């Protein structure tokens, strides 16, 4: 994307997350923490059930950024994992939506403020990215 306008709202993207996605991500990333695939372990440590990897949610945020920017080089990316994304053991999974606003354009650096929600609630705190214009 060549023209970034400060204040522009980027079209929200919605992605579906299923247990199969978490298993695939575990294998790809090397994060085999059982809270992401075992209800038994997840509930034993006080979680409501299997939760998605925070990094999977952040990867979906990065996916939206890549789609908006035409796969621009990412210079910074980050977020707090403020609420778990509980992923049910069914075919439908759970939806995660990524919205974004162009916060600043400084030389060739474009700063994006993101809003990442699931079930209508924010799941990431201060999700943000900086891409090269």
């Amino acid at each position, binding site marked *: 994307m060549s023209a970034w306008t400060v204040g522009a709202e980027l079209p929200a993207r919605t992605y579906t997350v299923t247990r199969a996605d978490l298993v695939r991500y575990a294998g790809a990333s090397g994060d085999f923490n059982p809270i992401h695939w075992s209800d038994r372990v997840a509930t034993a440590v006080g979680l409501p059930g299997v939760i998605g990897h925070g990094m999977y949610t952040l990867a979906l945020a990065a996916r939206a950024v890549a789609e908006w920017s035409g796969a621009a080089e990412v210079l910074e990316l*980050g977020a707090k994992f403020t609420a778990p994304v509980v992923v049910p053991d069914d075919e439908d999974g759970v939806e995660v939506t990524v919205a974004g606003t162009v916060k600043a354009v400084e030389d060739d650096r474009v700063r994006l403020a993101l809003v990442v929600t699931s079930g209508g609630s924010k799941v990431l705190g201060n999700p943000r990215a900086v891409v090269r214009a």
Partner: protein
Amino acid sequence: MSLDPSIVGRRYPTTAPYTVSTEKVREFARAVGTPYDGPEGPVSQVPATFPIVLAFAAMNGFLEAEEVDLSRIVHGEQSFTYERPVAPGDVLTARLTISSVRSLGGADVVATSSAITDPDGGLVCTATATLVHRGEAA
């Protein structure tokens, strides 16, 4: 069990060299839904969160050294600052440093920073993570 605050400032051993392969990037990209390449070669960057593979290995070294069970860790925060894009063929290592440890509602909140470097010592990416460690229930 809670973590000893004296670990602040501690650096853990550098991870074994990791060679970034096209196949691994492809697998990671497929898992996060961003196609990496097509018949004509790469169509995008390596996914931005790919360096977590290195940062995760560095974290595992820390957990092992401090005898902390992975299932007691919840990821609190993660950020990446990139000096350059990661590309297949890169040989990368990561080294984790503990930035701070504080106690919050019975959990240890551990801030870490992992420097991801190439064989010449050039910084490729800094990955900072906050790890929330929940001890055994009293």
